[in-house]
């Protein structure tokens, strides 16, 4: 038997595989909370992709594009992504306050602050990833549908599948990153939650 007391300076660990599993379950079981968090990314990415797709269709159709239009759209996209960032942060902060007891309990079981941060980052990356794919699909779908009504079936000849696929890659990169960046502050708040929060009866 080991001579205990705190002086036994062993390191505790949370293997990535376990952290991933916990985060995945968290996204799945708290489905509606995840949907709220995902909404920000879905909207932001859908807007980005719709702008990209619309520009591609316009270019391929041979219509002349006003270069100032491009700057205006870039600006709009950046602003919308920033707004989404704030939305995700807000949803994640709510999620942290809801889970005070769970976070406190994990700390009672030995979790370091960094474990908590890790769990929130993995969770937001997962949500961000799924939301990006959905956002990409909605963005492409919406623009194609609108153009289909205004231009008819010839829009399909103006779509380059390779480019649309490239948008998916962009979406996943930007959306996942956006979601993780938005979680920096909530994850800090969660990590600072005291272990004694496990006993708290209400917030």
């Amino acid at each position: 038997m080991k001579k205990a007391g705190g002086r036994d300076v062993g390191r505790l660990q949370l293997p990535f595989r376990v952290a991933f599993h916990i985060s995945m379950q968290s996204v799945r079981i708290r489905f509606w909370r995840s949907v709220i968090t995902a909404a920000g990314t879905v909207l932001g990415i859908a807007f980005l992709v719709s702008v990209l797709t619309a520009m591609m269709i316009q270019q391929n159709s041979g219509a002349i594009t006003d270069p100032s239009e491009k700057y205006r759209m870039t600006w709009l996209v950046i602003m919308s992504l920033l707004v989404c960032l704030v939305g995700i942060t807000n949803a994640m902060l709510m999620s942290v306050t809801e889970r005070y007891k769970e976070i406190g309990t994990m700390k009672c079981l030995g979790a370091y602050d960094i474990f908590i941060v890790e769990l929130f980052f993995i969770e937001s990356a997962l949500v961000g990833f799924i939301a990006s794919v959905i956002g990409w699909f909605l963005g492409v779908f919406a623009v194609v549908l609108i153009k289909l009504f205004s231009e008819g079936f010839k829009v399909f000849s103006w779509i380059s599948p390779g480019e649309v696929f490239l948008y998916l890659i962009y979406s996943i990169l930007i959306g996942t990153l956006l979601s993780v960046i938005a979680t920096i502050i909530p994850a800090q708040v969660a990590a600072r939650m005291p272990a004694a929060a496990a006993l708290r009866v209400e917030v």
Partner: protein
Amino acid sequence: MAVQPQTNQTVATGTEYIVRCKDVVKEYMMGTQVVRALNGVTLDIVRGEYLSIMGPSGSGKSTLFNMIGGLDKPTSGSVFINDVDMAQLDAQELAFLRCRTIGYIFQTFNLIPVMTALENVMLPMIFGGLSTDEAIDRGIELLKLVGLGERLHHKPSELSGGQQQRVAIARALANNPQIILADEPTGNLDLRTGKEIIELLRQLNKEQGVTIISATHDLKMIDVSDRIVWIRDGRIDRVEERSAIEVHVGEVEGTPG
């Protein structure tokens, strides 16, 4: 080393006491007002005993639980676990103590809702560095011990309160702790289930020699406790000993000193 019951608590060899609180004061700030939740508590807890902390609501039981469990720091005074002053520990050492030396049980069970019963029990072992296979084996063994061998893969929401508390007890035992700290473990349970949980704790105390410290209002606890500490307004009011204490303390023999 045979630990004989000490009716008067003056003899201290150092290892006999697993927890020592010295003049523990805890104040909380409520706005500009200072609330003194603990007002000079001095208490030595013997290795292997079953100690109940009783007192009216707001008397400071949970606050004392936090101090002993290393979940919060006293405003003044000190708490020693195995002769180590907890104030000297850094965040990582405290986490290690919480993981390996103390098992916690709460009134509201506090299972991680997104994990199954088995995963909940495995978590402290995984933190402690056990491989998944080892943790599964021990997790199953512990859940069998608390009578839940059939419900390994249920989520907390699919278990009754009593079953959840059993999982929590199995989880508290995960890393073979020396101390189990419980805050109102029967507070959310009906009479019969509460009794079962108390019996289970008592059995673990006898068979595994784990020291049990439980804050409670539940008078059913009196029957099984070796000592009962009554607190009131943040102070120890009186300490009652059970005469039958010898029977069980003898079983702690062999605990290294």
